[in-house]
């Protein structure tokens, strides 16, 4: 039997539906694109029970307490290091003395193993703006130099019991 040899007819694929879908997907991804800044965490540990009072380790840095007072509108009214039990007194660092606080903490704990075991307790007024707490945590937990290298300092950070509103 003689088979007729014929050239393959050119098959034209209709690209229109595919292009439609591709454009729809593209539009979807462009519109759902959300440009966000990077976020990071500061870990704090709040144990349920108070630590047992025992013989303090002579190599350990004594607990550091940072008291942050607030004005009526919530801004920082003063930073005090190691205040009395009633929250008064302590070494003052001014209202924006985070750099000085960082330098002082660095001189107390250094950046070695002592820094890792050091503990800072933050005691803030109830109506203090929260960004001041983050500034305080940033000041005590390390420093970033011009090259972007981070030197870690205190890693154990906790809060003192909350103060009553207006207190």
């Amino acid at each position: 039997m003689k088979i007729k040899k014929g050239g393959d007819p050119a098959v034209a694929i209709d690209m229109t539906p595919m292009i439609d879908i591709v454009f729809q997907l593209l539009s979807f991804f462009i519109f759902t694109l959300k440009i966000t800044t990077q976020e990071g965490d500061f870990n704090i540990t709040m144990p349920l029970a108070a630590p047992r009072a025992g013989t303090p380790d002579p190599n350990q840095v004594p607990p550091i307490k940072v008291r942050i007072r607030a004005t009526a509108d919530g801004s920082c009214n003063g930073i005090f290091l190691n205040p009395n039990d009633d929250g008064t007194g302590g070494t003052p660092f001014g209202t924006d003395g985070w750099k000085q606080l960082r330098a002082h903490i660095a001189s107390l704990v250094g950046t070695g193993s002592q820094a890792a075991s050091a503990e800072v307790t933050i005691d803030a007024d109830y109506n203090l703006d929260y960004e001041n707490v983050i500034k305080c945590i940033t000041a005590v937990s390390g420093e970033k130099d011009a090259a972007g290298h981070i030197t870690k300092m205190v890693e154990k950070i906790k809060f003192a019991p909350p103060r009553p509103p207006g207190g």
Partner: protein
Amino acid sequence: MKIKKVEAAKIEIDMTPMIDICFQLLTFFVFILSFEGADQDARIQLPASELAKPPEKSEDVPITLQVTKDGQILAGGQPFPNADAAKSVLNAERTMLEQRGRSVSDANIIIRAHKDAKTGDVQQLIKVAQSVEFTKFSLRAKDKE
């Protein structure tokens, strides 16, 4: 004079380069799509910190709680007027963890508080979470560039 009618020539546009570019754009947007910001809320403006770097490994059991400027708590997609009202969500999280054979100590409470929120409101939230026996907390801040 007789004018000869000329048929318009059929112009075929080559779609190949356009489709190539579209696919490349599509691939780009698919790859940069991130669901990490799904828990972010426009009401919360995080405080900035130069030390806020994304964690190297993702949290095992993260529970995100958000505190707005006026002290509202956003937990599990629902608003609560104060920290005490949000306790039910934390209790539900604890029950779910226990049903999955995990303990509350495996969970990490991520607190996303507005920069102008009251510190006392954040502390109250931590206190309420402690009453449900959560002990690990992370305070979230945005990277300061």
